[in-house]
């Protein structure tokens, strides 16, 4: 893959994301036009259309882009770290860990407010990531990728079943919590995004900084050690980045599945294995996929909306099955 071609792909990706964000602002239940969007910036007149654009649609498009990008990049880092093509924040239980802690806070301790939700999500993601990390490196060999996937599924099942258990305590919260748990970028305020944005930014730039080290790590630990990479340190930094990216994304949008697993695969097949290109490109593709899913979610059962987490599952499951079937052949 030449540098020129990679740059071209990144530019195309950026253009696609920009177009999709614009489309996400324009299309939906309330009819708006491209001109209306333009006017709402240049000549805001307080009309219903302009209000919808400024307070609902634009935050929504921004949130979808940020969350999609974060999840996809977290997926890339995880797959490299675990040497597991099926690793991703949702399959390994990171998302449901964050979800559990947020619901625990909301329902049991009456915690509310953006900052506290953000922190709860980080704590949950951190706990789950720690579990995954310990499980993946315990013993001499650690768990095989296959077993890691299973352990992650078990952790996820445990967290989500406990989440449902706590919802029983507070039925009034159920409806609200359900929509959050399904994963959605609708009705989230810009403030929530802004309170998470610093962490996501650190996550994104941190990921780009350690991209070179991830390249070395992906050659296998023995080679990486031979090349002078401090493996333990790299792994810990990578884990922290995963927590920042996945935890931040969950704090804003709830647990949205499958972005973290399918995007890295698509991105790899287009731009190659070099993490310095792979990470930003995955970010763009992740943003694009979540934007598309979100737009589709508005039209599926109009006038109601499908949670976007359901949409990504619809797109993601066939892909997951494809990888699972293909993975067997190479073994």
């Amino acid at each position: 893959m030449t540098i020129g071609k990679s740059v071209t792909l990144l530019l195309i990706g950026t253009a696609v994301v920009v177009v999709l964000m614009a489309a996400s602002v324009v299309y939906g239940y309330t009819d708006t036009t491209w001109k209306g969007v333009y006017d709402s910036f240049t000549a805001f007149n307080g009309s219903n259309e302009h209000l919808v654009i400024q307070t609902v649609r634009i935050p929504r498009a921004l949130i979808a882009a940020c969350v999609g990008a974060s999840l996809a990049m977290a997926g890339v880092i995880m797959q490299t770290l675990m040497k597991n093509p099926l690793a991703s924040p949702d399959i390994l239980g990171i998302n449901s860990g964050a979800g559990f802690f947020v619901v625990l806070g909301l329902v049991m301790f009456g915690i509310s407010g953006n900052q506290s939700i953000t922190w709860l999500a980080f704590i949950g993601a951190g706990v789950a990531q720690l579990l995954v990390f310990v499980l993946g490196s315990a013993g001499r060999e650690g768990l095989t990728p296959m077993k890691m996937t299973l352990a992650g599924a078990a952790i996820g099942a445990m967290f989500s079943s406990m989440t449902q258990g706590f919802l029983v305590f507070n039925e009034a919260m159920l409806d609200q919590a359900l929509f959050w748990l399904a994963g959605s970028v609708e009705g989230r305020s810009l403030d929530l995004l802004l309170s998470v944005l610093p962490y996501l930014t650190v996550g994104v730039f941190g990921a780009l900084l350690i991209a070179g080290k991830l390249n070395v790590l992906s050659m296998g630990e023995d080679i990486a050690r031979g090349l002078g990479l401090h493996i333990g340190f790299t792994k810990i930094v990578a884990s922290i980045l995963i927590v920042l990216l996945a935890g931040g994304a969950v704090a804003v949008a709830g647990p949205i599945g499958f972005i973290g697993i399918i995007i890295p695969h698509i991105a790899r097949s287009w731009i190659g294995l070099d993490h310095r290109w792979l990470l930003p490109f995955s970010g763009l593709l992740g943003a694009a996929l979540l934007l598309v899913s979100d737009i589709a979610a508005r039209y599926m059962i109009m006038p109601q909306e499908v949670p976007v987490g359901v949409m990504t599952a619809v797109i993601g499951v066939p892909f997951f099955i494809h990888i699972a079937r293909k993975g067997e052949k190479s073994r």
Partner: protein
Amino acid sequence: MKAFRPLHGAVSLLIDQRTVFKIISLFACLLIVFIASAALGDIKFSPVVAFQTIFGFGDPFQHMVVYSFRMPRILVALFAGAALAMAGAILQGLVRNPLASPDLIGMTAGGSAAVTAFLAIFSDKSNALTVSIGWLPLAAFIGAAVTALLVYMLAWKNGLSPIRLILIGIGLTAAMKAVTTMMMIIGPIYQASKANMWMTGSVNGSSWSDVLMIAPWTIISLVAVMMAGRHLNMQQFGDELAIGAGARVERQRIFFLVLATALVGGAVAFAGGIGFVGLMAPHIARRLVGSHAGGLIPATALIGAILVMLADLAGRTLFLPLEVPAGVFTAAIGAPYFIYLLFRTKG
């Protein structure tokens, strides 16, 4: 099929005496848990009173509490636990992987998805169901069966690889969860909270008519599994050995899968998606009586029943006046146990 006919010596259970003794002990445990469940709750009785009431010697109030409120749910817990555990034992034997269980390969999630879909589709605006609730078990069964079929078909690629089966199961579980969420959001809020209980797994609100449906379902399946036990033994050896020994591997595998689906469908229909029982019970049973199907199946069924009854007892006594679904407890114990198993098994 010739193999299932209990004629010309086709039934050979081969249970040794120690296993019989252990199974009897397990049965005694089951009875103790049963009486404890009947005695404990919002209103407490002494074990003796509970015992007398079960046999019809209590006063009318005791009789009402035990027979109208507690017995149905205890029995549903018993049968659902036994059914899920047996399904787990069958699946673990079939895919020769100690990590298989009905919830991991998506059958439970499929059943739950069908139940929520049923509740959402057949509810009118005032939350009333437009068709009889009696169809619900059928919906759960169809959901579990369709998922099992899908998993089996998608995992099929020049034969069945256990690992692929489980991976595809994980994928389909996610798909089914998405369907469930979707249905809960489309449906009215009241149904959503009901469906939420269902997904976690709870025997709250069971009635005698539930018991009358789940009991024969489970018992017939138990008998069928016991009769076909020796084929299950064969399956555990692996395809090459089993074919070499003259077993019709694929045909028997499909039979066992149907049986496992029937068991899961029945359990999910009446008790919801109680997780990890199908995983834990067979392991505990195997440690007690070894992996021979003749002893393993009844021991597994008893342990599964005890586990779910205990989880239900804990759920309705620990956090009074609130009720915690039994599935929360089984998951809280089951998931760590599962991870422990992952470390122990080689390869």
